[in-house]
């Protein structure tokens, strides 16, 4: 893995490292050559690691006090909020942490889309990322069910019922998922088990995600291949560590604001009403981070096709490295792609908005247009753009941004004086 052979200085260190090269790994991580021009959109990888660890640690404490039983879950959450020392803090961090996690992951994904980080040779990193994202959605959904409020119960009912759209075996699968004939105690206990399991699967995949990243190294804002280590790179420690740390602290200020001052604004009020199978809430809406997909689901009149559309909307991302035919990675040098990129961002925000609204009238029409455009972007715009677009000249390296086309006089001058020496 490491570019140069590393030998620990101490005898004990060498003895240990020959048997398990942990020190070599640590050395690789600190020396890891990173492009020096990474901007702040690149700090979200570290922020996401922080989010995952926060969720696991707070979740662990919550699990010590939570009771996964249909008759006691709601009450045990109130017990955590009232009687457990700083239980309110732990729970609010966990609940808002889920939203913060998704906020960060969306920025991370859209950063990747802008700078073409999913393209060769980084396809595997990207696909592992999509799997992590899918698991995150599963974990978030399962976790939202655990407080056993009205939105928990009815959200679980709506989402599990999606499986009934599968021909022939659908109904059977739903009964199997529920562990009965409706969402009830068996459903809650298995959801709790899976909610506890998934974060550790994510953790394992994160290790693979980072491992796969360390093979080709980071992409960068100008999207060119760079030599490592070289003038274009800096060692991960201390340069990137301190920069990631700074960005993480800024993120934590926003996080703290939500936790301490508006802890319930991202949740739904109905979830403070205990689950009641006999009373259906007026509007059943998922958490904000799932709304775009909810809008896609509802914009298709047929149930099965709706489910297929929703799943395709996520899975299509896995095919992105092959759908995008452009050889240029960064949108900085792709004037047309840049426009379409921002249209896609707007499209997803619109989908999120209509996902929160009732599926009728103008909202439904907008949802349908936005859904159609979403698929159009990936299936038509991206493949065609790669062939048709006239890209602007790409620099040869980060330190010497000499454009292939019109010469940059200042840079040329500098290069000449360098030759003279």
């Amino acid at each position, binding site marked *: 893995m490491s570019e140069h052979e590393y030998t620990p200085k101490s005898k004990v260190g060498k003895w240990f490292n020959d048997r398990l090269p942990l020190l070599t790994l640590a050395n690789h991580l600190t020396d890891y050559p990173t492009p020096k021009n990474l901007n702040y959109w690149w700090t979200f990888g570290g922020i996401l690691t922080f989010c995952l660890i926060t969720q696991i640690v707070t979740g662990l404490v919550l699990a010590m006090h939570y009771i996964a039983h249909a008759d006691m879950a709601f009450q045990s959450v109130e017990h955590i909020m009232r009687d457990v020392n700083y239980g309110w803090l732990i729970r609010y961090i966990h609940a808002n942490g889920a939203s913060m996690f998704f906020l960060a992951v969306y920025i991370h994904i859209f950063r990747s889309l802008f700078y073409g980080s999913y393209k060769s040779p980084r396809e595997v990193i990207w696909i592992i990322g999509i799997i992590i994202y899918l698991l995150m959605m599963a974990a978030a959904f399962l976790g939202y069910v655990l407080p056993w409020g009205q939105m928990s119960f009815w959200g679980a009912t709506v989402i599990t019922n999606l499986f009934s759209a599968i021909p022939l075996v659908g109904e059977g699968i739903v009964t199997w998922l529920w562990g009965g004939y409706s969402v009830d105690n068996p459903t809650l206990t298995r959801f709790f088990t899976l909610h506890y399991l998934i974060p550790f699967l994510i953790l394992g995949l994160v290790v693979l995600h980072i491992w796969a990243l360390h093979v080709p190294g980071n992409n960068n804002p100008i999207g060119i291949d760079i030599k490592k280590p070289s003038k274009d790179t800096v060692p991960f420690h201390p340069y990137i560590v301190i*920069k990631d740390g700074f960005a993480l602290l800024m993120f934590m200020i926003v996080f703290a604001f939500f936790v301490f001052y508006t802890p319930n604004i991202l949740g739904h009020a109905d979830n403070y009403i205990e689950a009641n199978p006999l009373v259906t809430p007026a509007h059943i809406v998922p958490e904000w981070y799932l709304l775009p997909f909810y809008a896609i689901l509802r914009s298709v009149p047929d149930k099965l096709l709706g489910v297929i559309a929703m799943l395709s909307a996520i899975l299509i991302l896995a095919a992105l490295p092959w759908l995008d035919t452009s050889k240029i990675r960064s949108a900085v040098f792709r004037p047309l792609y840049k426009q379409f990129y921002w249209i896609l961002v707007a499209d997803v925000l619109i989908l999120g908005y209509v996902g929160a609204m009732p599926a009728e009238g103008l909202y439904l029409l907008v949802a349908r247009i936005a859904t159609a455009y979403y698929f159009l972007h990936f299936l038509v715009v991206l493949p065609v753009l790669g062939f048709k677009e006239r890209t602007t000249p790409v620099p040869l390296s980060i330190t010497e941004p000499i454009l292939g086309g019109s010469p940059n006089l200042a840079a040329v001058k500098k290069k000449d004086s360098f030759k003279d020496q």
Partner: protein
Amino acid sequence: MKNFFRISFLIAIFLGFQFNSNAAEKVEYLKTDWSFKGMFGKFDRAALQRGYQVYQEVCSSCHSMKYLSYRNLVEEGGPEFSIEQAKAIAASFEVKDGPNADGEMFMRPGRLSDKFVMPYENEKAAQAANGGAYPPDMTVLVKARGDGVDYIYSLLQGYEDPPAGVTLDDGVYYNKYMYGNKIKMSNQLSDGLIEYSDGTNASVEQMSKDVTTFLMWTAEPHLETRHKMGFKAIIYLIILTVLVYFSMKRIWSRIETKV
């Protein structure tokens, strides 16, 4: 930077949308200034004590408060009754306990460790006594309504005669702030209904405000601690962020690249 502005612009449009759509479908709630709002918000101790009195004398005959214990009345950040007062309050209730050595259930006076005594044995009994409508538990009621304290404060004062064309069934009342305007709880508050032990004039407005404040506390008993801790946490984070920022500048200056 350009991208940053574009994103801000998109988010602004998005929020604007949301705000407009909300404004279109909602009624204007009655406004009052809540002492517990804002970064330094604290409960008004006297209002909490009066609010408890309103709950006790008016609401508690139908609405339970099942996640609250009498000991909570003494705790810091709440109404902060003295231990003697809270013990007297608890002792004024009969609590079912047992079984004793003979295997019998028995009644005894309440203690601080007891949960608030419920007005009905169970949900079915509550429904039977209230024309089929279940008076919701009040402990987290404020958080269970989208518009929280403003909604409850307004609702308590929102009873009026139904407009022409609206017919109401027996046991259904008109309230201009209730979702759908039809409510099964009759108007409970009237001026001078109770006599506040601190001598405050018990107007409908005053009682609504006091009891809503009390309900905010029952829903968020650690609100004051949360506000105080949040302020410290954020100040700490800001100072640390500034320090890390200058460290970062210093470290990156070694390679003369802007960060």
